[in-house]
């Protein structure tokens, strides 16, 4: 086992880190305070090729792999978790299913602009009555000649409102329950598509999260993704990869918090010495650093498996579970290490702590990850 990253991967890390520090970090606190999404940042990511990292050039990507993508999400999240999830939802959740299940036409029509970052993607699965129990969804899609008519609503949609392309899961055959779910590629300006309420959140506040409402929404039949009844399987397989993205986001958040805490602990003096000279602080930092390292390795392993066409369901669930818990612990301790200052908005660690929490919840709660893992044992 060679644990070293290739030169290509190191280059991507450096490129994204420089971009993140120069173009994303300076506005992160303000965008969080204002709950403001900045499309300009997304467009800059597109220029760097980040919006289509793993896709072949024929589909507008740069022909790299999932490990490179995960590194990019990690580096972005290190300064701004909102930017990390904007990319992750766009790529893992919206682009991947088209790459995997789309027809050649659908790939040219939709994957390409997503890969090039000309359009933003989103993924609509969750409803008010179906979160963890995704199969209990109620949104319907009735076939009528050359199109489907969608009715229902989805909640907690990342990139909601700013995305142009939405992967939507709806029941084409309600009698068959989750076996009757189909996947659709829906464009924002299809008739009957409405962006509903925007959530005001604890964290990742510059990533817009909205309700999406379908009122007799007309979707052309050729926008069916995969086959009728295949939707649930597509949704679940998509989440397997999405988990890697969130694990990477969590690793990034944790690393950002760790870096800040170490720097502060070395320069803050009390009782005549830097606070890191106290075992109470240095041991904490040691534990934090160890956990972040372990989380990163789990995440890279899952990405490597995916890149190499090997099964990665258990690995990605483990990565997401461990990285999410690590992010929560590390950021909470980082605020502690900063003392009173850590509790103010003048320092970034309270934002990191607020951002970390969501990584334990979305794209499959920690409880769901445990179910997934235990079923594979």
């Amino acid at each position, binding site marked *: 086992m060679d644990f070293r990253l290739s030169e290509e991967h190191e280059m991507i890390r450096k490129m994204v880190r420089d971009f993140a520090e120069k173009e994303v970090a300076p506005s992160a606190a303000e965008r969080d305070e204002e709950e403001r999404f900045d499309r300009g940042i997304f467009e800059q990511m597109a220029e760097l090729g980040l919006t289509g990292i793993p896709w072949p050039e024929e589909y507008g990507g740069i022909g790299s792999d999932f490990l490179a993508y995960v590194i990019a999400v990690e580096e972005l999240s290190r300064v701004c978790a909102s930017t990390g999830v904007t990319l992750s939802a766009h790529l893992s959740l919206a682009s991947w299913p088209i790459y995997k299940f789309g027809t050649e036409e659908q790939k040219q029509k939709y994957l390409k602009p997503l890969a090039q970052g000309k359009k933003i993607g989103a993924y609509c699965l969750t409803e008010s009555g179906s979160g963890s129990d995704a199969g209990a969804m109620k949104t319907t899609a009735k076939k009528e000649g050359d199109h489907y008519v969608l009715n229902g609503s989805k909640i907690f949609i990342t990139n909601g409102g700013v995305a142009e392309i939405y992967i939507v899961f709806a029941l084409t055959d309600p009698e068959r329950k989750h076996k009757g779910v189909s996947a659709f590629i829906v464009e924002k300006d299809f008739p009957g598509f409405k962006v509903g309420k925007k959530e005001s959140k*604890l964290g990742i506040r510059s990533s817009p999260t909205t309700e999406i409402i379908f009122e007799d929404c007309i979707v052309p039949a050729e926008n069916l993704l995969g086959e009728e009844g295949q939707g649930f399987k597509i949704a679940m397989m998509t989440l397997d990869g999405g988990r890697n993205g969130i694990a990477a986001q969590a690793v990034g958040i944790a690393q950002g918090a760790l870096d800040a805490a170490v720097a502060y602990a070395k320069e803050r003096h009390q009782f005549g010495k830097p606070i890191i000279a*106290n075992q109470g602080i240095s041991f904490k930092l040691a534990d934090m650093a160890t956990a972040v390292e372990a989380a990163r390795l789990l995440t890279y392993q899952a990405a490597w498996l995916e890149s190499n066409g090997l099964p990665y369901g258990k690995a990605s669930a483990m990565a997401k579970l461990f990285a999410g818990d690590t992010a929560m612990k590390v950021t909470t301790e980082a*605020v*502690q290490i900063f003392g*009173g200052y850590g509790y103010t908005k*003048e320092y970034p660690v309270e934002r990191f702590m*607020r951002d970390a*929490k969501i990584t334990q*919840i*979305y794209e499959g709660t920690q409880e769901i990850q445990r179910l997934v893992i235990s079923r594979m044992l």
Partner: protein
Amino acid sequence: MNFTEEQRMLQRMVREFAEKEIAPFVPEMEKGAFPREVLRKMGSLGLMGIPIPEKYGGAGMDFISYILAIHEISKVSAALGVILSVHTSVGTYPILAFGTEEQRQKYVPKLARGEYLAAFCLTEADAGSDAKAIRTRAVRDGDHYVINGGKIFITNGGEADLYILFAKTDPGLGKDGITAFIVEKGAPGFIVGKDEKKMGLNGSRTVSLIFENMKVPAANRLGGEGEGFRIAMANLNAGRIGIAAQALGIAEAAFEKAAAYAKTRHQFGRPIAAQQGIAFKLADMETKIEAARLLVYRAANLYAEGLPCVKEASMAKLFASQTAVETATEAVQIFGGYGYTKDYPAERYFRDAKVTEIYEGTSEIQRNVIAKWLMKGK
């Protein structure tokens, strides 16, 4: 825990008050509004001077009743809990315990009735955990002191009428060179600096203070020169138990809301509380809260009886604050995606809980205190 009938009556009264008068104002507080009107109502009900003797205008109740009040108020608003705790534990008590009769008569009744709000000014930019490293300087000049320097993270700062201030009268003497003062708002040279924007405890105002040749009458010195550090430390017990009660209130509120949600939210055909993953979480949360409650009231009881309680107060603060953070974090988890939105209360408990591990002595300082007693063989 055996509370007296009188204590239970106060607890009930405060709980009702909190639900009727405080809860509706919480959304405003979340937007940054200071609860002036609520504090006025609390004053008229005697809640701003619960443990203060009647002869000084207080309700003359015991320390446990006061802690019960902070606990109940904090379940509804942690911000209001700390406003009260700082006002009484470290704002009023020092004057009661160390003031001259004249100072007591002049200030305590107004504080006890809530006509005056108090604040406690110790922390500086370079003196947090290392409190004795403060640099604010007080120089005697005839019948007053001239004070220069600044303080940060002052709860109730800017709103308070009275500030218990700690400054160095003799920089050469370390902690024995610190003196306490009672500073009234409006003292010449007293400047309210910036308001901190915080993660939580919205509605509780936290400011910097700047003293530019501030003149304070010598009659407002609290205790003798050089006694300041002792005065600051003496009031820490009451302060720590107060914060422990605040943390307990946050933890209980988070737990109760999460448990109620878990029973009504259905997924996979049954309430999520029926899943062991969630049920076990709730069991652990409730157990820790019970342990925290016992630690808090044991410390409060010792304090009420005038018995030593430094270690017990530290343990209560350490454990209750940790419990608040853990419980609030799990509460958001149990609420799932909804818990992450501002439509549900869990995220507020999450943001409020964290500070209880930091102020009035970080958890690391509490561990130091407890360990010191361990070393003494006690």
